[in-house]
């Protein structure tokens, strides 16, 4: 059943968001701390666990994979609702405070990657 796969995905999403909200409350901050990240970890763990026990049928997998494939269209729609005008009209301080730290972070990526021995990989899962 396709819908069971969607149910597993939705369950992980809600559980993850709940975890993020609770963590935010515990830390006394007005934000969800890593709710999406927790949801991803739950989904990876649960789908692995179910696949090992042959509970996760290909049909179920298709239900979750549909949403994974919808990712690109959603991201395109997301970019079309960004406040680009607001970013460009924020003045020199905003532009500099956006560009310089971002450039610095980009420059650090290869340094950290080298430090942790990241290698290009073949397309094995």
């Amino acid at each position: 059943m396709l819908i069971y796969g969607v149910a597993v995905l939705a369950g992980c999403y809600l559980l993850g968001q709940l975890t993020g909200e609770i963590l935010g409350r515990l830390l006394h901050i007005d934000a969800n701390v890593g709710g999406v990240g927790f949801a991803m970890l739950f989904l990876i763990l649960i789908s692995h666990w179910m696949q090992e026990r042959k509970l996760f049928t290909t049909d179920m997998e298709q239900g979750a994979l549909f949403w994974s494939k919808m990712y690109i269209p959603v991201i395109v729609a997301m970019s079309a609702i960004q406040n680009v005008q607001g970013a460009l009209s924020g003045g020199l301080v905003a532009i500099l405070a956006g560009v310089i730290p971002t450039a610095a972070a980009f420059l650090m990526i290869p340094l950290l990657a080298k430090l942790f021995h990241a290698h290009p990989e073949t397309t094995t899962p």
Partner: protein
Amino acid sequence: MAGQALYRWTDPGSAIAIFFGLVLAYLGGRITGGKKGIADIPGLSGFSLMGGAMFRDFTIVATAMGASLVKIRQAGLAGAIALLLGILVAFIFGAGVAIAMGYRDAVSITTIGGGACTFIIGPVTGGALGASSEVITISIAAGLVKSILVTIATPMVAQYIGLNNSKTAMIYGGLIGTTSGVAAGLAATDPKLVPYGALTATFYTGLGCLLCPSILYLLVGWIYS
């Protein structure tokens, strides 16, 4: 030149679509003066549902279906260190810009530093510290500039920064951190890397909201008193 650069991208189609999305968003803002890009035009308001935070987060979680637990474990430490460094680097350079541009009070400097992390951390920090609405607006705009810059720049620089494996993707997510920018940047570069980058990036805003109004504010105040 541009054609050659496009040729190297795994999926130039998405990069082009995302770029045109940003162009549409700009036009929407110019025409209506609103804040939600093309969705401010009444007939196209459906964009704000399709591209809103709920669908974005739900589909990001769904991409985890293809992710490998082994690879995440291997890159876990690198991702965590990248997260902390990412917030520190963005904050320090953002605060540095604020100081260079003439801001001398710790609250404004911290708020703009927070905005340099993401457009959520800026206003959350400013709200917690009681920053002026002018400074909060600047911090949001700085975060927006970052998000859009990351979206456009990621596929262009991916080959130069070695963004072609899961470990570097986790480092990238942690260092850059702005969820929308990372999500769009990786979608335009290589969709297979999305779960790894998104996993670390989703912790960035929460961690930034924790660190900026507390430790980092005290640090700025200590330097400026």
